[in-house]
């Protein structure tokens, strides 16, 4: 008799907790789903094509620094940020670049479009999730499997 009563209580508490958890996870899901454009840290050059009113709007654009585009002219860094769809954005930056900014590596630029040129105020280097020593790369290059620069 006592065991049956206990099972009932356990079931009741379990359902109570399940309802609490379901309510909170639903609300968190709805919040993050409706704010997904704000939660995203940057947009890619391809996303810019479908956005209107980007002129003079504070934005973050992320992608790779295009090969052979990084130059230092008249005290400004000039480069192109390119994404997988080969869409690119011309960027000009007047301060010191972070150490890890290299061609064909990830970058995030923060600033505004002025006359179709992105004037960056902050530049951040974005490194990827691959870690390997130089010796492993040399080995891959010997085998012809290396696909980087």
């Amino acid at each position: 008799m006592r065991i049956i009563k206990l099972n009932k209580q356990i079931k009741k508490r379990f359902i109570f907790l399940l309802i609490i958890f379901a309510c909170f996870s639903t609300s968190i899901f709805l919040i993050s789903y409706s704010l997904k454009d704000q939660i995203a840290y940057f947009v890619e050059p391809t996303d810019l094509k479908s956005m209107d009113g980007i002129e003079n709007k504070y934005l973050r654009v992320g992608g790779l620094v295009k090969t052979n585009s990084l130059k230092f002219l008249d005290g400004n860094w000039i480069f192109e940020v390119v994404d997988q769809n080969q869409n690119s954005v011309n960027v000009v930056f007047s301060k010191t670049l972070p150490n890890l900014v290299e061609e064909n590596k990830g970058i995030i630029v923060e600033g505004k479009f002025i006359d179709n040129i992105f004037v960056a105020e902050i530049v951040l280097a974005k490194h990827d999730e691959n870690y390997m020593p130089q010796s492993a790369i040399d080995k891959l290059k010997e085998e012809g499997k290396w696909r980087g620069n």
Partner: protein
Amino acid sequence: MFAITPNALSNFMISLSRYVILLSLVLISVSIFLIIFLENDYYQGISFKIMFIHVPTAWLSLAIFLVMGISSIIGLIFKSPTAFTVARSLSPIGLIMSIIVLVTGSIWGNLTWGAYWVWDARLTSMLILAFIYLGHILLLYSFEHFQKADFAASILAIIGLVNLPIVKFSVDWWTTLHQESSVLRMGGPSMTNDYLITLLVSFFGILMLTIFWFSNIFYIIVEKRKMERSILLND
């Protein structure tokens, strides 16, 4: 779990703790030796070596919260004092782990990204996790009777479980400055085997240290309650 008394678990953990701390010291010394003599990353240079503290503590801060949440569920459903005490002794460890993650992460971020802190999804959700740990500890000590405190804190731990998948998958769901997962991901680890082995040795060393720390906090809580009970009975 609800059949085990806090006293039995405390005695069991304390009897093991001598071997656990020995294993932890051995693993941590081996991992320090490995980290020092490891070849630098081709792109980030020496600064990537902070990963061998950052990643294990990040895994542990998530894993500790998972254990805390599950034991809170068990505690609430089966009214188990052991499960409540497990959750109570885990939260300070989780707070320290998440603070280590945030500090090492911002040092690493300054060296590679060029910024100590940005408000992207991964960093913000990790900060929220640290604040949930802090709130859990504050709730535990804001009631006169520990049963009430355990009830309130375990509700918070169960709600906080919602944050765990957000921390883990934030880098996949949204664009972030933080890089994606290197080890626990589809398609296998994206690092060479010597890095992976070093990371795992370091992880198990810190895991053993966590278990040692947990058994000591658990033992102290159980002994303190025993003492309080004996004082009450003597009066």
